[in-house]
């Protein structure tokens, strides 16, 4: 790892730009300039929200794409961070609320999420493939019901309300533009981290374990430890997304971590494609746009039918989601992106 860092530093500017790729730079510029043209609604409700769910889906993509572990518990992990923010920070529900400053609350919340994610992983890596999906679904559902029934910690059905994003440097970070840049910053950071991590020694080992756990075990790798560590990393991403989610909504309740949301995250990741980290964000944008505007197309309450049908069609037509469709329609572009990709 130190070796790659050293070569990175020594590289001339031209190469560094080259390495980043033209597509990434264009995308970054477009996203940075987006607030100039977009309304507040498109900044937070669409772009910000998409990026939060994109990061959540990214944490799933990290597990499923590189580790071969399909999880439905990512929203549960995010919810743990969200509840931690509500409990340790300030809320207006008159339950708990220790009033810690945000810069202590956030690391604690993310750490809690990462540790619980590692625990969930530790439970579920005892089984493989499709079984992981079952166990994480059971965990997600059980947590949802527990949060709904428990008043001492989770404040039951109503949850916590009145949670504010921090105000510092004279900026209220829940204002549309700052919040957009906050989400963009987190999304870009986690995207880069996952992309970098996938090429690191750990990432390579994880992918090798996904492809052939027996061989890796025979080679002397601790398979369980690697998988649990992947869960830990995914937990950090999901926890960060959870913190942003609770700042975005201003409240957290069992509905935030419901089974439907857990399935939404899976839908986003699968619709986007599990091959490349960008898929998670693509899927998030598509699903959030559909959720927002399907009301105009199919009436007030039937958007779940539309999303379900789109999901069905994509699973039927292309196992690799939008990324897979893209690859089919434009083989040339696909090859290009493969060269630039992992």
């Amino acid at each position: 790892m130190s070796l790659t860092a050293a070569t990175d530093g020594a590289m001339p500017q031209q190469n560094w730009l080259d390495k980043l790729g033209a597509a990434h730079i264009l995308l970054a510029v477009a996203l940075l300039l987006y607030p100039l043209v977009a309304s507040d609604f498109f900044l937070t409700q669409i772009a910000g929200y998409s990026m939060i769910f994109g990061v959540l889906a990214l944490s799933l993509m990290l597990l499923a794409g590189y580790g071969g572990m399909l999880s439905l518990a990512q929203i549960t992990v995010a919810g743990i961070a969200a509840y931690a923010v509500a409990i340790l920070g300030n809320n207006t529900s008159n339950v708990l609320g220790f009033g810690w400053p945000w810069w202590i609350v956030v690391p604690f919340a993310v750490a809690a999420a990462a540790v619980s994610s590692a625990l969930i992983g530790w439970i579920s890596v005892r089984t493989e493939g499709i079984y992981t999906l079952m166990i994480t679904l059971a965990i997600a559902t059980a947590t949802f019901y527990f949060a709904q029934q428990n008043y001492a910690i989770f404040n039951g059905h109503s949850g916590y309300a009145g949670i504010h994003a921090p105000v510092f440097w004279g900026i209220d970070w829940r204002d549309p533009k700052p919040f957009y840049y906050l989400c963009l910053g987190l999304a870009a950071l986690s995207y880069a981290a996952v992309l970098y991590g996938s090429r690191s020694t750990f990432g390579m080992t994880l992918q090798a374990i996904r492809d052939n756990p027996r061989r890796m075990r025979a080679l002397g790798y601790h398979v369980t430890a690697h998988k649990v560590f992947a869960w830990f990393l995914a937990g950090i991403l999901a926890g960060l997304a959870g913190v942003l989610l609770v700042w975005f909504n201003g409240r957290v309740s069992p509905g935030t971590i419901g089974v439907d949301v857990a399935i939404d995250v899976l839908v986003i990741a699968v619709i986007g494609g599990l091959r490349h980290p960008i898929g998670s964000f693509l899927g998030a944008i598509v699903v959030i746009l559909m959720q927002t505007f399907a009301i105009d197309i199919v009436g007030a309450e039937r958007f779940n039918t539309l999303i379900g049908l789109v999901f069905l069609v994509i699973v039927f037509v292309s196992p690799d989601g939008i990324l897979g469709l893209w690859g089919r329609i434009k083989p040339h572009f696909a090859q290009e992106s493969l060269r630039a990709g992992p």
Partner: protein
Amino acid sequence: MSILDQPSSSPLSGGGVTRRQAWALVGLLAAAIVAWLVFAVWPDWLNAILISKKAFVSAILNGLTLAGLYFLVASGFTLIFGLMRNINLAHGSLYLLGAYIGYEVTSRTGYWLLGVAAGFVAMAIVGVVMQVFVFRRLEGDDLRQTLVTIGISIVAADLMLAVWAGGTYQIATPEWLDGALTLPVITAVRSNGASVFLTYPLYRMVVLAAAIVIGVGLWLMLNKTRVGMMIRAGVDDRAMLSASGVNVHAVFAIVFAVGAGLAGFAGVVGGSALSVAPGEDVRYLLASLVVVIVGGMGSITGAAIGALLIGLAEQIGLVYFPTYGIVLTFVIMVVTLAVRPQGIMGKAR
């Protein structure tokens, strides 16, 4: 007898008692304790610990009834899984749809039994349709099959919400199933010496009996009939069964019909005992998942054991530590996974 037993007694056992005999002793002891708890008049200290005998025995009975319901739902789930390696995450939707159909038929015709039959038949047909149009197309790709069932459950939940709205329905049970049963269980002794017997709704007893009958029936079908033989062979080695000239697709369709039909049946029966409302699909999906994870995938006996454990844990948890009841279920699942990842009756993969 003992001489004959000598060669077969396993080398694992020391001290002259085989492993099996030891388990039988433990089982007998447990049965004796339960029998004493149920039939004896409790001393005061026990009442003090366990609230009251009435609460305890009711919790046990409620747990057994719920276990019966869970078994009905989970047995279909585990059958489908065992044969097709497909986790049908739309199983909860089948339960709920069956319940709604049962409600409609019962309230229109007035015959409850007709509603039960309609729930079973309608879901069996839906199951076959799903098998033919979805699973046959994605054969061998269990991940995509699972994702497709998720998509189906999303659409189904939304469409059911559109048709039946968000209200709560109760399926009316016929008169001959109403009323209460007085059980030979003394809950307390009055000061004048008269015993107070426990009463329990007749209908719930019938649910329990139906679950037991169906469980035994399923076991007989699987172990004593030709179709059952094919199903068991398919669970063990699908390719070999197909190679020996059996129409595997027909077997799959039968299993899917029975499994989905049982979910619909359970929906009507459960909707009469409890209620029908949106969200029940997720609840029963969770129950099936946990029951099957605990009991072992693909095993009917495992589903029965898992359903008993989860049903009892849920109801006892509800009485003795209300807000943490779900945690008890969860602990059972985690402990099972830690000790036996394949489930209590599951085969090692």
